């Protein structure tokens, strides 16, 4: 089954109100082309699941796409906090379900394995349990010890960016550091949408089956998007765009400047080529791939 789609078609699989599990870290490996398309299609009331969210969370907050965040942290690391996200939370427009990393893993692990809950010993003693209906204390039936039961979370769709995929949805990554979300986000989600730096023939994947991280049967859409993680890093192909992050950090303090930024980089560029031209074209790309 051919799962290759345009990015418009792939993001068209997402409905308002759904929960999107987004691969990303502070400045790493975010499927930013899919994030921009969510904004362009004016999705509303989405929930967003991240282990650690970066610029994507800021953009989706600024554009009014998300109304809830489920995850462990939001930050752009050395570039600072995500101010549009902060403002949205402080203004009550985005509600936060803050989970420790083991608790998020437990909620998603239960979702992946069709279990109603999984336990963790994390978070005991914190204030995070009482305020969260998806967590409850439970006595171990064998020893009576207390654990935190974490209710299964099944996101409607996972967004993944990868190095290569074939048309059937088999997905490979290069032998580099493992993106933290890849181990559980796609397994827990009902649908999986993948952007890949390149779409290749299945024969290419068969040469290195150990590098395949998602089987085609568990993937619903594949879109070829070179530099699809820009401005986040995607090693070994390219690093994060420092100048672009600094530009965003600056404009994100001001709502008007923020909307102008989104206009320039998200709404106006009709294609990935247009977007790459807007962020500096070949010259910028060469800098990031050095």
């Amino acid at each position: 089954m051919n799962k290759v789609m345009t990015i418009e078609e792939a993001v068209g699989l997402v409905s308002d109100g759904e929960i999107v599990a987004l691969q990303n870290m502070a400045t790493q490996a975010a499927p930013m082309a899919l994030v921009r398309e969510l904004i362009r299609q004016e999705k509303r009331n989405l929930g967003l699941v991240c282990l650690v969210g970066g610029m994507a969370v800021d953009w989706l907050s600024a554009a009014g796409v998300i109304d809830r965040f489920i995850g462990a942290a939001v930050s752009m690391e050395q570039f600072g906090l995500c101010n549009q996200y902060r403002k949205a939370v402080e203004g009550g427009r985005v509600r936060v379900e803050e989970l420790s990393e083991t608790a998020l893993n437990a909620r998603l692990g239960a979702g992946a394995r069709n279990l109603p809950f999984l336990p963790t010993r994390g978070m005991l003693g914190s204030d995070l349990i009482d305020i969260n209906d998806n967590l409850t204390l439970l006595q171990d039936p064998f020893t009576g010890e207390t654990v935190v039961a974490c209710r299964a979370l099944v996101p409607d769709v996972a967004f993944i960016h990868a190095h290569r995929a074939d048309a059937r949805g088999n997905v490979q990554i290069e032998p580099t550091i493992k993106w933290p979300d890849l181990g559980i986000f796609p397994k827990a989600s009902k649908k999986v949408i993948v952007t890949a730096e390149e779409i290749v023939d299945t024969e290419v994947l068969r040469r290195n089956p150990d590098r395949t991280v998602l089987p085609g049967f568990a993937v619903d859409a594949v879109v070829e998007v070179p530099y699809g993680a820009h401005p986040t890093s995607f090693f070994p192909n390219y690093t994060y765009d420092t100048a672009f992050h600094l530009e965003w950090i600056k404009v994100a303090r001001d709502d008007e400047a923020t909307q102008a930024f989104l206009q320039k980089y998200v709404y106006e560029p009709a294609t990935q080529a247009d977007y790459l031209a807007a962020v500096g074209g070949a010259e910028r790309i060469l800098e990031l791939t050095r």
Partner: protein
Amino acid sequence: MADYGEYTIDELMCATLAAQFKDGDEVCNGMASFIPVAAIMLALRTHAPELVWLAGAAGVDPRPDRVPASTLESPLWRDSVMYLEQYGDFWNYAQSGRHLHTFCVGAAQLDQYGNANNSVIGDDYHRPKVRLPGTAGLADMGALGKNLLYWNTNHNPRSLVEKVDFVSCPGYLGGGDERDKLGLTGGPKLVVTNLAVLDFAPDSKRMRLRSVHPGVTVEQVQEATGFELLVPSSVEETPKPTAEQVRLLRDVIDPDGMCKREAGVK
């Protein structure tokens, strides 16, 4: 020739944290953790060559040529001997009880009983005055029997508070045996700031001054703290970094001055 007898506060903090790592310990760093990363790199080059480093909880025993611009991006895990996956590898080992006993952590607020807050400033969790980054792995580390080493480059009454607005990570809760009663082991052991080193009194679990950095008085530390510190009858001076430690930090480990930037050293 450079004078390595002079040192900056980031160098003292690195040396102080490095001294906490025993050879053979397993340690990891999180994001924006330049001082802990430099401390690990320093320990590896001095007293703890067999220290096991899980860089960014992802690369095992890497050999970055210097402290990079990010402590959670690629140059950090150069030459790793293994790549850890967070869901199946890192958190399995971190939860096992057999590994990773010590963590360097930072917090926006830390209170007199070592409770930490990285979640919200303000009374209403869902309409906070300030939304902080979030607990990340901290709420796990605080509950999983780890020894927590807090570091703070800006010791002031807003970061060291009487009571945190929200407990993102349990310390000793209300003090005394409150933590024990929940069955929690480990907990905050040390707080290394730009002014002093602090620990927790054995019974009350209140934060206690352990040493002041050279040139800092007990009064200055108390004044910069948002609650009354326990002060022993004699307070030692924090050891200065040695000339060799300063040389290593300045010329080899952190020539780009990432730690200085983090500590606000111009």
